[in-house]
Structure formats: C-alpha cells, structure tokens
C-alpha cells in the first residue's frame, strides 16, 4: 500500500470518528442539558455576569472539600 493510500484511509477513518464524536457531543449536550455534576450548562454563563472577586463561584474549586 502506498503512502497516499494510507493517507486516504487514515483521513476517511479520522473523519468518520470525528463526525461521530462531534454529533454525539451535540446530542449529549441537548438531551442531557446538565453536566456530570448536575449543573445546567447555561448556568456557566454566569461566570461572566457575576465575576466580581467577592461573588460566589458557579462551582467553587474547593467545594468538595467543604462538603
């Protein structure tokens, strides 16, 4: 098999995998709507809107330690 053929197969294979992953991701996002920690994705917008240093983080880094 020539390098051009290998390249072509590699390319097609990679395309299929990536299309699958990205559509899967889109499907996951819009059906689950929430991430693994149970937070609605849209809440993350608040990271920009409530960004004073005294505001409570959307998900604090030390949260699990406190609980």
């Amino acid at each position, binding site marked *: 098999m020539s*390098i*051009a053929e290998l*390249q072509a197969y*590699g*390319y097609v294979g*990679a395309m299929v995998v990536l299309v699958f992953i990205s559509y899967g*991701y889109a499907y996951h996002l819009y059906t689950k709507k929430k*991430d*693994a*920690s149970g937070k609605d994705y849209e809440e993350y917008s608040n990271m920009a809107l409530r960004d004073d240093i005294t505001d409570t983080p959307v998900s604090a880094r030390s949260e699990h330690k406190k609980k």
Partner: protein
Amino acid sequence: MFHWLEKHPFFFAVGVFLVIAFAGLVEIVPNFVQASRPVIGTAPYSTLELAGRHVYIKNSCNACHSQLIRPFKSETDRYGHYSLSGEYAYDRPFLWGSKRTGPDLMRVGNYRTTDWHENHMKDPAGVVPGSIMPAYRWMFTNKADIDTAYAEQLTVAKVFSTPYNKPVPMKDGSTVTVKMGSNVAEANAMALAEAKVIAADMKGQDVKDAVAAGKIPEIVALIAYLNSLK
C-alpha cells in the same frame, strides 16, 4: 468526557493541541520528500544570483510580484509555462507571493533584458507609462552582500546537500555544474567575474566604475537573479 476536560486545564490543553495538530500532520508530512525533489533542468543559484535574491527579499519584491504561474491559458500566454513543484527545489524561502500588484516574475529572465531592468529600476514609469511601482535608485549605490550569500551557499550545501560543485542534469541530457568558492575570497572573485558580464550590458557609468573597482552594487546582483528566472 468533555465535561471532565473542562475542569482539567492540562488535559484540555492536550486535547485542543491534538485536534489542531492533526490537520497539519495529515496535510503536510506525507508529501514532504516528494515535493522537495528538483525537476530536471533546475540548478542551484550562483553566489551572485543568491546575493540578488537577498536584494529581492530585502526590498520585499514578493509583496507585489508573484513567482507562481497557474495552469490557465491566460497565465501561460502571459508568463510562460505553468510552474512545476520541482522548479522550486532550491528556493529557500519560496517566493510565490500572495498578491500581483505587478506582473508575475517566475520566468522574467525569458523576456526581459539587463538593459530593460536597469532603466526600469531607475524609473519604472519612464519604461512602463502608468506604472505605480516605486523607483529603486538606492540599489545603484548600495553594495550587495556577497559574504552572506556565500554563507548561505555553504549552509545549504552542508545541511541540505544542495548540489554545488556537482553535475546537475539538464533537459537536453547534458549536465551543468554550479561552482561555489572554497573560501570567502574566492567566492567574492567568482561573484565579481559574474558581475562584470552583467555590468558590460549596462549603461550607467557609476555601476560600471564600481564593478571595475571590485565592488558589486545591489542592482547588478538583482539583475543577475532576475535573469536567472527562466
């Protein structure tokens, strides 16, 4: 998986890097060896031509002139045979350009002469009425940097095995050997000998005098380079 990436910046960065590096790997790497093989009839640049190429680069000629003839009738009619990959084998860097404010120069050596270039570089609009190209009069007084051109020859011969002092096949079955000096003094002498041939075809007395005195103005080197583009 994505959610996890979002909270682990290091792995996120690795993920992004893989996704963006993938295209480059597939597009560029496989053809590397093939694309850098010279076609028959392509020889490396002589010292003076290379110095002229440096003048071309120093003044960003490539900002307005391409060196790439596309395979269309209108382009081959205007500029000559369309470009082949192997013709650029000794071009480091490539000088295709991205904009034709002026015409393509890939094969300018086929249809312009030393005399034409001399007049044109001094006063473009005088030679081509309506031209918007600026004049490059300082090239007639600035001296070409032969040493650096020689340094580049040494470098490419050593690092990239560019065939200097070796026979290179031509289209008619003959071979051509592009000589490179064995030291700086010899390289300068060889460039000067080449420059004298160019200067003999030029009209400006200042340039002739300079070359006779052993100095090579930038314009002479540049014309040597432009004449070599065929």
